[in-house]
């Protein structure tokens, strides 16, 4: 049963249109005066000089998490590329020199032009190796090849750009928790 929304009945003053125009003019001049005299209340950003504050859980460009020794956390299990609906993740596995870890990616590429930024890869990853919290929401390039990001690009992030509560990021080289994490890692505790 469709719900019928009745048209609002206009009063006499609304129907002659004249008074309402002046009410509208009062509204717009209020906004103009506010923008002119109280610019600090403007909601609009002076983009791109002023960048918007993107929340940490916004699904932005990917990064690969790093172990305390500087290697990638990825074990080349292909879970992310299997989960990917856009098939934009291209992984080539190789044998890991670390005897605790079976495989590692020789190549890890994401085609950002194919990516739909659904975040399934992040959810599929069993090792917390891939994340989408770089806050890089605007990507620009002058050729298609520049949109295919490789392992090196995805691992070149700075732990200082991430909050201290993000312990996994801080365990990477240069992070606040790297020293003790590296000691634990060397002693054989891989988790």
């Amino acid at each position: 049963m469709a719900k019928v929304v009745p048209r609002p009945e206009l009063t006499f003053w609304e129907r002659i249109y004249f008074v309402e125009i002046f009410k509208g003019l009062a509204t717009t001049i209020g906004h103009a005066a506010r923008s002119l005299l109280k610019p600090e209340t403007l909601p609009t950003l002076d983009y791109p000089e002023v960048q918007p504050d993107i929340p940490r859980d916004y699904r932005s460009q990917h990064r690969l998490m790093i172990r305390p020794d500087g290697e990638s956390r990825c074990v080349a299990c292909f879970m992310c590329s299997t989960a990917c609906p856009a098939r934009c993740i291209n992984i080539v596995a190789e044998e890991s020199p670390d005897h605790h870890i079976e495989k590692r990616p020789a190549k890890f590429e994401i085609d950002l032009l194919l990516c739909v930024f659904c975040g399934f890869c992040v959810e599929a990853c069993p090792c917390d190796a891939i994340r989408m919290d770089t806050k890089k929401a605007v990507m620009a390039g002058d050729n298609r090849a520049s949109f295919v990001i490789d392992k090196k690009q995805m691992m070149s992030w700075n732990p200082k750009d991430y909050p201290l509560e993000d312990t996994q990021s801080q365990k990477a080289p240069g992070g606040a928790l790297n020293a003790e994490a590296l000691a634990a890692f060397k002693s054989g505790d891989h988790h």
Partner: protein
Amino acid sequence: MTIEMWLTLAKLGLVLIPFALVPVMILLERRGAAFIQDRPGPSRAAIPLPGGLRIRGFGMVHNFTDGVKLFFKESLVPSFAYKPFYILAPAIPVVTAVLTPALIPWFGPITLDGGVRVVGQFLDANSGILALFALSSLSVYGVVLGSWASNSKYSLLGGMRASAMMISYEVSMGLGALGLFLLVGSFSLTAVVEWQAAHAWGILVQPVGFFLFVTSMFAECNRSPFDVAEGESELVAGFHTEYSAIKFALYFMGEYCHIVIASALIATLYLGGYSPFPFDLHAFSIHTETGSYFDWLPKAPYDAAFIARNLGTWIGIFAAGTAILLLGAAAIVGAHKKRYASFKASDQKARAKEYGFFIAVFAIIGLLAIVGAVGAFTQIDPASEATRVDGVVRYPLWVQLATAAIQVGIVLAKTLFFCWVFVWVRWTVPRMRYDQIMALGWKVLLNVALVNLLVTAIVAKLVGVGK
């Protein structure tokens, strides 16, 4: 050369005022639209100067970059267009826009030695307003001719709609203004302004006629809410769909010129032209047995002689007004500077420098204007130099020229205010449907105009104001 010839040349310069105001008008439109929509507005184009100073001029640089772009863009003529008319059409609105201000009085009549009277308009035709209406109505030819010569469906539909609308509203425009001319008894625009200076502004004696005239002027200028000629949602860009580069720029400039002229015309007809006060203020003076209060309020008429008599005060008022405006502008720029300093912006230093530069310029000129105001209030006294010729007080030429300059300033202030009203209404009232526009024009405005004319005629006859 005689003084008269110099004055004629100066008036030729005044005729170009609407054309010179087009960049101001475009800036007003961009910034006004931005501020009404809670945006900061145009901020990209800048002139880089040494020392990291980037002058954006509050968006004024955008106008020049736009102009350069439109001048140097390829001037494309579609193969299906009828070439002669296609090229001729954009010139028509610009030509009429340059011609019409010749009929608007920018200052009151000046009496030279030997009794030569110089009026404040380039052409003081007896037909006055009729010639102005005739000229400004010619701009409809630009729309019709351009749309037809483009040989495109969208253009033709837009042009037809625009021409039908402009012609319809011409009727109520003429009838709406007629009430005022009935009271004045002359079609000469100088006579209209002199009448308003002696009695009261047109907006007070003819409020209905004022609204009729303004509404019709919005339609005449093809402005929102009557801008169906370029209804983007259904007609791409209306009559100038097939125009680009400098030909489009001519249409654009013609349109904005038309707005400035319409504002000047409204200021002349209904806001008293160069008369500073809306009605006889002296009527408020109270006389009792113990004395009279508010007796210092000036007596009408507020014509050129009134301003010449109190020239020092008026120059002082203008300098003080300029000072208040500039210092206010400095304060506003300061607020914007403070806002921008609170951001993590990449061009922090350049912006701070630019804002600081403008604050300094405004503050210095504003303070100079304050000094000028004080000086004018205390030093200028033209009464000592006045002579009496045939029982009429005659002031020396410099006093009369200064008076004329003040009157031009008054007309310009009113014109700019109404330019802002055009922008303000455009960003407030949504576009009307075509049938609604036609219904409003023929079924409402025309009848209101006729009734207004009838009532004005009867009242004028009973009171005995009109001729």
